[in-house]
């Protein structure tokens, strides 16, 4: 009986997500905001609360985060990370300062305390590389000359995450200053060691993982990622970062094959993850923070526009290209929810979850739309100039 209800609920949720995804595809927006809305509807205080499958969805959501970060890591190889770190450090730091500030300042002004400020800084900082990549390819911007600038900012952000997530995890664990510092030190050392190993000895890992059989390859890659993620979590480094680093260590054709094998799995569990975040959020808590979220979204849209304009100008891009670089950076999505999810799990502040959910709802939906709507405007600017 229990199994029957579990299947009924899970099947209903996944089928519903599929229908929502089709709708998003038709309208031309990212499905992420719709998944979040679905989660809100299924959660406590929602329209159709789930009874038995929440436990499974919770585990599925954890897997979703691991797979999201693993496939993100597979997109890059260690050389690309290092070279983009070298050539775009300036733009990356401007990005970090300008876009972490709105969240951190908002949290401090609300009196949520320093830990919440660090978490909110992450929520407003990270651009969704998934949504941005999709915007770039949908609008045919991949060939544009500002696109390498945008991509290298995304790479910089992802690398920053590898350092930020361990720090946040340590802070959220509520450690004392001393043991917190020790944990952060361990975290940073681990990340640097893994990066170094990936750079120098990546081919040994690849030789171990490689297999002409796709089944073997899938099991090896997922197994390795989960093992490292678990180990990282044990060391308080954050499981997600462990998986990200495994992804970076693998490169070339192997990474290409692994990504193709993993992407259906990732799509399934990432959707579950967004639903789970929605589940944890009480829809009744959203209206009080809606205005705040909208204000924060507006401010951080402006800061991303400034970031894009600055970085593109440094690369010698014209006015229209600078505007496009900024617009491409607006969407927020998976990372912001991952960060907010960590903070919500640790019970930082009851309003943080609803605020982050609303914020991402706005920017994940509006980001791609903004790009589409602004395109003719930018073109006319360029024609006049």
């Amino acid at each position, binding site marked *: 009986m229990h199994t029957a209800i579990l299947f009924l609920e899970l099947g209903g949720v996944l089928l519903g997500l599929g229908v929502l995804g089709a709708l998003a595809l038709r309208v031309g927006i990212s499905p992420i905001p719709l998944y979040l809305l679905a989660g809100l509807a299924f959660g406590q205080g929602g329209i159709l609360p789930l009874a038995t499958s929440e436990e499974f969805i919770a585990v599925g959501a954890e897997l979703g985060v691991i797979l999201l970060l693993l496939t993100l890591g597979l997109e890059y190889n260690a050389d690309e990370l290092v070279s983009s770190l070298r050539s775009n450090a300036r733009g990356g730091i401007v990005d970090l300062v300008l876009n972490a500030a709105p969240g951190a300042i908002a949290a401090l002004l609300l009196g949520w305390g320093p830990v919440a400020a660090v978490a909110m800084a992450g929520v407003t900082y990270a651009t969704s590389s998934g949504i941005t990549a999709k915007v770039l390819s949908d609008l045919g*911007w991949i*060939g544009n000359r500002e696109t390498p600038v945008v991509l290298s900012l995304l790479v910089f952000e992802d690398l920053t995450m590898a350092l930020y997530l361990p720090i946040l995890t340590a802070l959220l664990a509520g450690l004392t200053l001393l043991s917190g510092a020790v944990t952060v030190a361990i975290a940073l050392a681990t990340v640097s060691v893994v990066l170094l190993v990936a750079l120098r000895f990546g081919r040994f890992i690849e030789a171990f993982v490689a297999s002409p059989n796709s089944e073997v390859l899938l099991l090896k890659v997922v197994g390795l990622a989960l093992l490292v993620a678990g180990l990282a979590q044990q060391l308080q480094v954050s499981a997600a970062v462990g998986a990200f680093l495994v992804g970076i260590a693998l490169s070339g054709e192997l990474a290409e094959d692994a990504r193709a094998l993993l992407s259906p799995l990732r799509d399934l569990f990432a959707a579950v993850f967004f639903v789970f975040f929605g589940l944890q959020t009480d829809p009744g808590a959203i209206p009080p923070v809606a205005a705040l979220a909208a204000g924060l979204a507006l401010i951080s849209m402006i800061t991303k526009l400034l970031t894009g304009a600055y970085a593109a100008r440094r690369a010698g891009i*014209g006015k229209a290209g600078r505007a496009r670089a900024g617009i491409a950076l607006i969407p927020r999505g998976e990372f912001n929810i991952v960060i907010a999810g960590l903070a919500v799990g640790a019970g930082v502040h009851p309003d943080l979850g609803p605020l982050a959910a609303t914020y991402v709802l706005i920017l994940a939906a509006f980001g791609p739309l903004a790009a589409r709507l602004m395109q003719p405007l930018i073109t006319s600017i*360029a*024609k006049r100039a």
Partner: protein
Amino acid sequence: MEIEQTALPGIGLKHEFTTRSGRRVGVISHRTGRRDLIIYDVSDPDRACESVKLNDEEADALVELLGAPRIVQRLNDLHREVEGLVSLQLAIADGSPYAGRPMGDARVRTRTGASIVAIVRGAQVIASPTPDFTLAGDDVVVVVGSPESTSAVAEILAHG
């Protein structure tokens, strides 16, 4: 002419250059093997106004269309520039002693002083073939050299 190469992390590589008439053209090589031919906007030179997706076969076809006539043209230019230099297009007969053997076996340059600069096989042009390139019947060998040396090559390819 300067070709600019840019890495696109997570996507692949981009090569671009500006033509003498001021148009900017580029090619994106995706890691998946897909190629995009990019043409930039005149009024907004940072924007790709045209992007044409090419698969392997289409990219090859485009290369041939652009490349093959260029080789013939370059040969003609060479004639005009250097007096006394001729190029011959020699078909390899099925009975040729070199059909099915590496080109290096004929030791054309050592024996005659002429050079094999290209081989035309069907619609394909192989420019600057290496000595280990295996000749086949119906290949057309393009040789460049003095009138005597090129006719010596014709003799070698026909009778050994």
